[in-house]
């Protein structure tokens, strides 16, 4: 897998995965009838991708996992968020820089390789970013943890350990805020990204939200709207493993300081997330008013919904909600969130404890600082965790139309994606002109 950076990239592509003819020549055009493709248009060179390609391969084909990486990756802020669907959409001219494709964990970013970044040397030094320095060789330790403070313990999921960790870091001045998920007031069960800057705000959002919030794409806006000093903000980013994969890749390949505010990443272990609208309908189909649901919890393959008073409203096998799941989640093998500084989940610890995996220097430092607020014990026995992670990996290998290859190149070209996905049930869908043409700003 040797790379020769000084050579042209079309050569690079042939070094790794593709046959020469596929990536060396002009690029295959997209699948939608794009009216911009006039009669005798000059084809793009291999390697070029536009938002339109991401739209067809990921968003229109219903594989988007709503991590927000593309929004954060776009250097011209051309990608925004459609607030109805909660998915990416073009809000001004696409400049064809390919970054949205290159960093999307469902298209150009080989996410399983990102999970190996901790073992790899740093990329060439960039001017602004030192945030992930010193990750090499860090050990991974798994703990069972819970808040010493009982109020936090009750409010959070499985012992309130994440809430406590973040609160301790805030109060120690290690971070200025934490990007977490809260629930939207106007739409039951729909998550929203919140930048919490105090223990109280963290407590208010404690508990899991099972729909995505595109938080990686909202960091800038959340910061703008906050009281945090904008000069050198230090934030913890909490999210599903895919969000952290995107963040880790963006941090590693710093472009324009877009991930500079991220000082710590916390992954919430995850087998799948839900599309908010479909989740609401599915819960309604079970005869439960979605608006009455205060808390959702998934444990041992069962989804529990409870109301304000903690009364269980629903107890139903998680499979019942398959149709509400994000389809893209089935391609993910990263249950634990291996790209994060710290991962947290319920599997493997006793009830009322959170299983926490601490890796990287950043993670260890955060863990030390927060330890006064946490009751922790090293978990020697991680069978349960390994078991579900294995199950998750098997599902991903079965679902992924492409090869699962942790040693493959970081990037997956458009041509390679097409070669693997065309003709499968995860094939591209023709572009939605409303998503790629109807923006107001052009140059």
């Amino acid at each position: 897998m040797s790379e020769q950076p000084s050579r042209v990239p079309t050569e690079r592509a042939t070094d790794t995965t593709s046959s020469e003819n596929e990536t060396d020549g002009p690029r295959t055009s997209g699948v939608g009838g794009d009216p911009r493709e006039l009669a005798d248009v000059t084809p793009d060179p291999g390697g070029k991708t536009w938002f339109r390609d991401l739209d067809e391969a990921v968003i229109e084909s219903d594989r988007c996992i709503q991590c927000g990486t593309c929004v954060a990756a776009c250097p011209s802020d051309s990608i925004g968020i459609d607030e109805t669907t909660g998915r990416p959409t073009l809000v001004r001219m696409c400049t064809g820089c390919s970054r949205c494709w290159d960093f999307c964990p469902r298209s150009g970013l080989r996410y399983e390789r990102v999970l190996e970044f901790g073992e790899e040397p740093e990329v060439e030094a960039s001017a602004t970013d030192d945030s992930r320095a010193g990750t090499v060789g860090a050990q991974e330790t798994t703990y069972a943890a819970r808040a010493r403070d009982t109020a936090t313990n009750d409010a959070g999921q499985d012992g309130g350990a994440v809430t406590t960790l973040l609160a301790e870091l805030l109060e120690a001045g290690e971070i200025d805020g934490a990007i977490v998920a809260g629930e939207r007031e106007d739409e039951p069960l729909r998550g929203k990204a919140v930048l919490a800057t105090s223990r109280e705000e963290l407590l208010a959002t404690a508990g899991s939200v099972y729909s995505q919030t595109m938080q990686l794409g909202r960091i800038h806006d959340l910061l703008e709207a906050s009281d945090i000093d904008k000069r050198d903000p230090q934030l913890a980013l909490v999210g599903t493993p895919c969000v952290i994969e995107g963040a880790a890749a963006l941090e590693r390949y710093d472009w324009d300081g877009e991930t500079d505010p991220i000082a710590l990443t916390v992954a919430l272990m995850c087998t799948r997330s839900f599309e908010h609208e479909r989740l609401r309908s599915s819960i309604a189909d079970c005869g439960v008013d979605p608006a009455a649901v205060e808390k959702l919890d998934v444990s041992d393959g069962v989804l529990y919904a409870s109301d304000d008073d903690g009364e269980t409203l629903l107890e139903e096998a998680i499979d019942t909600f398959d149709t509400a799941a994000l389809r893209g989640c089935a391609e993910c093998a990263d249950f634990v969130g291996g790209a994060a500084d710290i991962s947290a989940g319920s599997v493997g610890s006793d009830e009322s404890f959170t299983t926490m995996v601490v890796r990287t220097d950043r993670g260890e430092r955060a863990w030390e600082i927060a330890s006064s607020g946490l009751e922790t014990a090293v978990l020697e026995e991680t069978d349960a965790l390994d078991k579900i992670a294995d199950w998750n990996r098997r599902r991903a290998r079965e679902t992924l139309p492409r090869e699962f290859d942790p040693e493959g190149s970081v990037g997956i070209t458009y041509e390679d994606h097409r070669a693997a996905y065309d003709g499968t049930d995860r094939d591209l869908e023709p572009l939605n002109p409303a998503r790629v043409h109807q923006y107001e700003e052009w140059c």
Partner: protein
Amino acid sequence: MGRPDLSVVSPCWLSENRETVTVVDVRDPRAYTDRGHVPGAVNVPAERFRDPSSVAAGKLPEPEAFAEELAAAGIDPDDTIVAYGDEGGPLAARLLLTAVTYGHRGDLFLLDGGIDAWRDSGSLSTEKPPLESATYDADRPPADDSPLVDREEVEAAVDSESVVVDTRTRAEHDQSHVPSAVQLDWEDLLDEDRRLKPRAELEDLLESRGITPDRRTVLYCNTARRLSHTYVVLNHLGYDDVAYYEGSLTDWLRADSPDWDPLELQAQVRAYADRGFDALVADLGEDVLGRLKLAGLYHQKQRGFFMLRTKVPGGELTAEQARVIGGVADEFARAPDDHGGESQNPIFGDGYLDLTTRQDVQMHWIRLEDIPEIWDRYEAVGLTTLQACGNSVRNVVSCPAAGIDANETIDVRPQVTDVTQRFLGDRVYGNLPRKLKVSITGCHENCARAQINDLGFTPAVKDGRDGFAVHVGGGLSDGPRMASDLELFVEPDQVSELVAATAEVFKNHGSYLDTAVNRLRYLVEEWGVERFREELERALSSEFEFESGSASDFEFEPAGESLTTDYRGDHVGVHEQDDGRFYVGLAVPVGRMAGSEFATFADHAETYGDGELRLTPNQNLLVPHVAESDLEAFRSESILERYSPDPGPFTRGVVTCTGSEFCSYGVIETKNRAIRWARQLDEWAADRGLDEDHDAIRLHMSGCSASCAQPQIADIGLRGEVYRDDSRTTEAVDVGLGGDLGAGEFVDWVAGKVPLETIPAAVERLVLAYDASRRPDESVTDWTDRIPDHELRGILSGATGPEEVATGRETETETELEVR
């Protein structure tokens, strides 16, 4: 026309009649299959019959496409359809309205409450019914028979007994609406469960808004979704004279709103100058920044500062004007200290300006508070920034040697002035669906690049009369297209009218909504040349009728003989004029110079010429009217060492856009990099003696894919990209080779994402390989066409040496000298 019955039915009715009707589910395929549907229902997803991509036809799909969808779902034009969706059913209603518009004969019903109401009482199925494909013929009915009306009919309705209904929300209506329109939120017709309210309640509601069955009703919304629902409900209630307007409010607003009036915007800038940028944005909204382009102001990447674009029609400037422009740049185009101040740019310092490929002048760091002063100085000498940017007729480009070229057929300066004046400050045409770029040339060398403009005039002769051939629909960017020859002849005094007619056609038929695909070329592509010409004739006829008071059909004359014989890349060097004096073309590498230097040229133009300067479409400068006896003295001016009439091939051929220094779209930095490259490559070429063989090597670098540096027409075209591999990421470019307007060819994009640091050496290898393997008189374009792309890539990467390049293959393309 006997239209089918159109009404709303209950789930109860449907369960009783399910066997005799065709039930259509318009939700997305996933909801249809996974979440279940009404048993027996076929799926025609709304996205398949709504067509926001079509440029000319608005939101309706093409009849053929609609027919195909319905036929595939096994639907016959005589079937009774019951359509349903979710969210109260506007998309299901949309299907029914489309069917009505295209002449469906069977009855059409909307399922009240949609899938949710059905679920309450009936069962769902996840099985797809067997599909028998049917034949479906859809046709656009004649206009007077169609419920679909155009803008003129809405305008007529505004002034008549008809009632125009805005089916959007109260808030949207309050913000703006078609004059006289009453507001009726489509959701007001539904109860809490999204079921239709009782008839009596609906009738009271409609009456309260003045919507009664005896009045013609015209509906509009924004994307023709909500009005569809209201359309069905009104029919259900027995209203039989209901029409709808598809263009939505967006195009109405754009055409008539003072928000988009260039003069109004100019006045706003003056009004806010004292209060500053933040107050302007706070009061008028962030989107005012987009509209200010019509006043020539483009908000730059650094918040609170503007790029100011000065229009120079045909590139012709008086020395006095040039002195003002230079002085303004020197005084106002200055970076604040926290952005580097006097050393903001390592090569150009501070207080500089950029010459552009449309013969404009741009400067950066302009503050709102300084703009009135700048405009005052401009007005005093007859300069303007009005409509230099935005969706308007842009600066008219022409041959920079117009009126002095010894071989030209027509001195086009009067036409350039006519067109410029015709549109300046014009509110109606100041607000087109997108920009409209016009070029006019009277020389034989296509200096104004007709093929890459929306509308291009090149000289022609007919029956001994001089006039023009007209080309339409050219452009670069992400849908590059060579303009089509309209195959007609116009006299010089018809030019301005023809541009106005084109703007009229564009305004009436171009989309205001699909901004990425609404340049004029998409309309030309959709219609073809013949239809476009007919539409122009129609527009000119009605204008004639308006002016003369009598109807008359305007017809174009068939084409004359084209006089374009060649393509000229630039005007660098000393050239003899028709009057025996000389014009001196000076290379301004990457188009950038200090404002003070520009003012110095104004002085020189007075000293050595007639006090006149010209700007070229190559970002260069031209000093005309220099007597032979003054040439020597002019050439020895020190400033000509930097801006030379005899530059190295790379300095002469380099063109760049603004790049990431100021442009929020720019992926890479362009100007500093390109001027360093050009100097370094010129030294290399001189060392090797290559500068003898190469006058100009045209390297155009755009910071992104928007083509502001016109990479498609260069020998070597570059556009910004980002490279990433396993170990690093860096600025990169797509490399295109062999563009030549003279041959009617754009570059072929040969290699993608090439890291920038490898480019200078790759360019050297290309030049060497070309020299080593080209045939006698073989142009760069022919050479790049002949050499296989993989070899060109090999040369770029260094894998193929110059001596290894194939020499044996026959050339596949003929060189065309004629403008296509």
